[in-house]
């Protein structure tokens, strides 16, 4: 295995994802080229084979997700990465994997849409990621890294969470976090205590055959199955919410932002503080399960929330659903393109800060 490195290295976010996957014990990667995530397959195509793993460049993202379905069914850790249009193609497979209760890690270094769109940073895939994306009543675990270090740490975590719940987990990054370099300390986080994969297909030797499927035709079967999945999502909300708060204790005004936008918002918050405004930052790290309760608790004290997104308004719906009913939720969105500088966000804060 990879030795633990105690020294910081300067790597791209995409490379950090690939390193996190290797350190989490991922041995198989299936993918199809698409900008801006190519450093992930490139890195893994080089580094997986010496570890005894395999990299396959599939004929499409549809093939990738189904190669993953097969690999995951045998109990091994496998992943794919892509960018928005490719992730759209994977939605059918993700629905099947959620329905079949198969773990998998998918990385979306999202780009801008709709359609071919462009390759600039965007947060336009928030709905697709958190609302299911594919058909049927299912959810994915969605983690939103904001630094290169988090690209590594959260990829590692995604494998654990996906195994814990037998459910697909997604890393939702964007071109900015994927392409930029920052210092990374490549040390493995502590691994979760995970249940044995006794459901995996390994050959029915000395046991009854294992079946992995999502087709339930007997009366009542599917209802029961859907309730079971629901219980799982509820458990995620209880046990695996993650978020970051900065300066919320004395805040009179809170910015809510995730991923790359949280970085810019943090600088804007500092500028606001320098100008004497008591502004705090709430950054959801798990976009599903969403930190509803944490946000609600804050909204009992703070009544003004400004949601900043690199889209025309998606996560703001979750903020509105979370906060206390007398809290005000404002929104500042930017369609894909250049990230707004902190000064621009500061102007928005000034507009609403009372």
């Amino acid at each position: 295995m990879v030795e633990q490195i105690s020294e910081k290295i300067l790597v791209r976010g995409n490379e950090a994802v690939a390193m996190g996957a290797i350190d989490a014990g991922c041995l198989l990667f299936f993918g199809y080229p698409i900008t801006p995530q190519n450093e992930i397959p490139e890195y893994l195509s080089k580094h997986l084979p010496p570890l005894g793993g395999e990299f396959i460049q599939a004929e499409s993202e549809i093939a990738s997700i189904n190669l993953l379905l097969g690999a995951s069914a045998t109990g091994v850790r496998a992943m794919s990465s892509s960018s928005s249009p490719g992730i759209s193609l994977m939605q059918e497979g993700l629905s099947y994997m959620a329905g079949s209760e198969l773990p998998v890690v998918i990385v979306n270094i999202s780009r801008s849409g709709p359609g071919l769109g462009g390759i600039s940073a965007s947060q336009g895939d928030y709905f697709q990621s958190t609302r299911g994306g594919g058909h049927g009543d299912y959810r994915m675990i969605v983690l939103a890294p904001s630094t290169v270090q988090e690209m590594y740490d959260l990829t590692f975590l995604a494998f654990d969470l996906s195994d814990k719940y037998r459910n697909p987990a997604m890393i939702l990054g964007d071109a900015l976090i994927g392409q930029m370099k920052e210092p990374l300390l490549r040390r493995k986080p502590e691994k979760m205590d995970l249940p044995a994969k006794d459901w995996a297909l390994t050959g029915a030797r000395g046991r009854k055959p294992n079946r992995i499927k999502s087709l339930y035709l007997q009366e009542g079967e599917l209802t029961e199955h859907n309730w079971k999945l629901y219980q799982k999502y509820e458990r995620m909300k209880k046990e695996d919410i993650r978020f970051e708060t900065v300066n919320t204790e004395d805040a009179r005004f809170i910015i809510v932002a995730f991923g790359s936008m949280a970085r810019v918002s943090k600088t804007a918050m500092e500028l606001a503080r320098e100008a004497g405004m008591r502004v705090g930052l709430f950054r959801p790290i798990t976009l599903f399960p969403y930190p509803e309760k944490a946000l609600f608790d804050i909204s009992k004290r703070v009544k003004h929330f400004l949601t900043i997104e690199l889209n025309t308004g998606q996560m703001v719906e979750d903020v509105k659903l979370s906060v206390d009913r007398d809290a005000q939720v404002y929104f500042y969105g930017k369609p894909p393109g250049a990230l707004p500088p902190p000064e621009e966000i500061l102007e928005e804060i000034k507009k609403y800060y009372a």
Partner: protein
Amino acid sequence: MEQVFKRPECLIDVPFHFCPGCHHGTVHRLVAEAIDHFKIREKTIGVASVGCSVFMYDYFNIDVVEAPHGRASAVASGVKRARKELIVFTIQGDGDLGAIGIAEGIHTANRGENITLIFANNGIYGMTGGQMAPTTLLGQKTTTSPYGRDFTYDGYPIRMAEMMATLEGSAFVARVAVNNPANLMKAKKAVRKAFQMQTEEMGFSFVEILMSCPTNWGLSSLEANRRVEEEMIPYFPLGILKERKMADYL
């Protein structure tokens, strides 16, 4: 007294749900016999495709994973790549392989994935109620080709075995039928050979089986068998199209 005919060990003792005269049960049996023959039941994984073949897990006494429509060969490849010691097969219908999943099928063959693909070609969508398939014959009436398949609208029936045989990655490609005892014996040999190729790590093995679907063809079992003989076989000629003698990496 010696028992000369019995249920293969890797089939579960339940009646098939298939329609009367349908060849699916026969094909399941051929696969089961091959698995028994090589004594590989405990390390064989079946990949259930979408279509009448999806209920594989109700009949085979082996580990099974269900694939989305058209994606069975990709799923099978994923299983095999993850655990090379396993024997992996799938039974894909003509809609599954010849239409929605043709890309996955071709590329699985082209990568030389060491799996066995049984292609169940009955020229029709059985499970959804008799719509036109990519292998539906010209002139054949189905619920979505009520005037008969016309190549100016619908193109031509696809010959999958021929296509697979052209790919460097395929090791064994055959087309067989199970409409009479003589063809059945050849089919049995071909299916066994396909599994043998996999156990010997020769690469991708492919057996197209011409099958009947009396229900959706609107024929009796005997008429359906005759139709396989008189209409399908002339367009889809039987035989071994390709047989690699040595693995390509040797």
